[in-house]
């Protein structure tokens, strides 16, 4: 193609792009009769991409395969879907094996709740607000509105930056293009979520409690700008929600909170959350999460174990621990910081050992505690203790997934 023709093409495309950005048709929610879902080329493209995205999540094994948890979430979700939608979109609910505090809705009706977020919630009413908020994004077709305003592109690029530095969840850039919304859209979803909760009989205390909880979420534990972080805009959202509750819904009676059912689901999720955090070297965040849960369930040997693992890995990976610290505190990573963590090696190994022993005190046959104690001893150069503990682990454990790894260590102790 000649240079002149390139210039003509560029000018035409720029003008077209500018014009098409100005002329956008209004987007009708799914609650309206002739909503036209899936009829525009833009929306078909979004649906296609959302389908591709979901296929990839499944192929990577990122969707939690736990019938009890999934059935529970689907039950709560279906109670909240407004009955006026004509079935044009199948709204579906899934749990994602991701420790970030986040949830998202795709333009094709897929709604995903991260394990990291579910581990933070305390009762079903809070969950209902989260799910209601995401349902509203689908019903109001915020994905298509956003596509028109092109904000998603900028956010996708920004989220890609966050993804490179903050977390290794590889799907984030694609998510940014499909499920990032304006402040207006988020506020609208909050309002509609409250309406869905009232219709389904949930206590609106859930909404207030949720915002309080989210204020405690470090921005690094979520995605930049996410409504599920302590982003500054969220304080305003909380204030708007309080106004709505005090105004339109001030006479609504108490609804159900259902903390007990939720706690049973949560127990299944918190351990997965801790494991996922440790895998991506979020050691300090794992300690924080484990201690939060230990305050609620001090007799759980598994929580003691994962806290121990977090300390042990901090000791064995001072670079990783320093990197996490710098990322959380938004400081520069430097050799001094890494050296500081190296100096803390003995302290961290001691804390790890204490945690494993606390786990063992709750259950004398808890094999994982022996694994932890063995690895601490190995790290300290105590081959005899390491060998005894690791052999105990191999003998007591029912399903050993890392037998080869452990045998490799035993082989190094006794070559």
């Amino acid at each position, binding site marked *: 193609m000649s240079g002149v023709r390139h210039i003509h093409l*560029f000018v035409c495309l720029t003008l077209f792009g500018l014009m098409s950005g100005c002329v956008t048709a209004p987007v009708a929610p799914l609650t309206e009769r002739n909503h036209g879902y899936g009829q525009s080329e833009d929306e078909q493209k979004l649906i296609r991409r959302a389908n591709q995205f979901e296929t990839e999540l499944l192929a*990577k094994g990122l969707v939690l395969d736990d019938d009890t948890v999934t059935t529970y979430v689907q039950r709560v979700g279906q109670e909240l879907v407004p009955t006026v939608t004509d079935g044009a979109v199948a709204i579906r609910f899934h749990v994602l094996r991701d420790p970030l505090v986040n949830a998202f809705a795709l333009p094709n009706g897929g709604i995903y709740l991260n394990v990291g977020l579910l581990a933070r919630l305390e009762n079903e009413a809070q969950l209902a607000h989260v799910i209601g908020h995401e349902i509203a994004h689908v019903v109001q077709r915020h994905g298509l509105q956003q596509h028109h305003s092109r904000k998603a592109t900028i956010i996708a690029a920004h989220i890609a930056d966050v*993804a490179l530095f903050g977390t290794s969840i590889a799907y984030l850039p*694609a998510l940014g293009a499909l499920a990032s919304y304006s402040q207006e859209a988020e506020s609208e979803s909050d309002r509609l979520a409250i309406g869905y909760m009232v219709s389904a009989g949930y206590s609106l205390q859930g909404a207030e409690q949720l915002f309080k909880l989210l204020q405690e979420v470090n921005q690094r534990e979520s995605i930049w700008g996410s409504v599920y972080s302590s982003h500054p805009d969220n304080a305003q959202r909380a204030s708007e929600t309080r106004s709505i509750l005090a105004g339109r819904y001030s006479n609504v009676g108490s609804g159900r909170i259902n903390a007990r059912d939720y706690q049973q689901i949560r127990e299944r999720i918190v351990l997965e959350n801790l494991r996922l955090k440790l895998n991506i070297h979020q050691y300090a965040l794992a300690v924080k999460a484990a201690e939060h849960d230990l305050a609620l369930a001090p007799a759980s040997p598994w929580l003691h174990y994962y806290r121990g693992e977090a300390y042990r890995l901090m000791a064995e990976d001072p670079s990783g621990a320093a990197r996490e610290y710098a990322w959380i505190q938004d400081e520069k990573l430097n050799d001094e910081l890494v050296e500081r963590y190296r100096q803390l090696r003995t302290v961290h190994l001691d804390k790890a050992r204490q945690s494993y022993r606390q786990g063992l005190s709750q259950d004398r046959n808890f094999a994982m505690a022996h694994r932890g104690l063995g690895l601490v001893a190995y790290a300290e150069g105590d081959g005899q203790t390491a060998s005894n503990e690791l052999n105990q682990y191999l003998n007591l454990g029912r399903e050993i997934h890392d*037998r*080869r790894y452990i045998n*490799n260590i035993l082989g190094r102790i006794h070559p």
Partner: protein
Amino acid sequence: MNRQYRRYMQWCAALLALLLASGCAMTTMREHPDFAAQKRQVKNIAVLPTDVEYLLLVLTGDNERLTDEERNVKTTMAEALPGLLEQRGYQVRKTSAEELATIVKDANFTIEQAKSAYNEVSKQLYERGMVEEEEAKKFRVSIGPVGAAVAEALKADAFLFTRYSGFKKSEGLIAKEIVSSAMLGALTGVVVVPAPAGGSMEMALIDGYSGDVLWTNRGGGQVAATAIATNLLVKLPATGTVAQMEKANAQAKAAVAAENEKRAAASTSSDGTP
């Protein structure tokens, strides 16, 4: 700037730095010291399916995944990688995503966890960009036990995973870049021709017993994915008879170089005149 394109540009910048600093041998490779010193015996390697992302970059920024291209790259890489590893003397345990799913519990997720763990240690490995060759053999990082279950099920000493990010630009974007380059060229007298397509690749060889990262390399260019893979794997330390042959060749070359130096010195007279 799109993530793919940015990686590609980073790789180009790194290559430029290499050319400029070619007085010191710099490398994108990283090697565990035990592997470099041949203290780890790796005979057979399981090759995991390549992760591929291929984008069409467009003027509006609304980039599109090209799934057909992605499938093609995955297929060509699955065909090429075993041969390239065998050329380095390794036995290869080929596998597919379908086979993995039947022999490893929760295989897809386990592999994703291994990749996530590798992404974290990769930040440590590459925070200084290119390093001198001797420095490159001093990196001790591990992804822990997460990958051992996969390697054990496949009866392999180590596994190789590869990720490739490719892109090609739409005509509109190319037109825009040509206009920008021309305008900049008019001002500066230098015209840079923007690349219409390209890709970058990273490979990692992980010890299937300890989770140690034995070897990694990354690179890119305006060439096919298999060509990039060939360039990266030629730097993987060879084993077995291939290693012996390479050692013999290197010794022969060194002997010839030493002989030539001796002759050059001898042909100079004692007062320094030729």
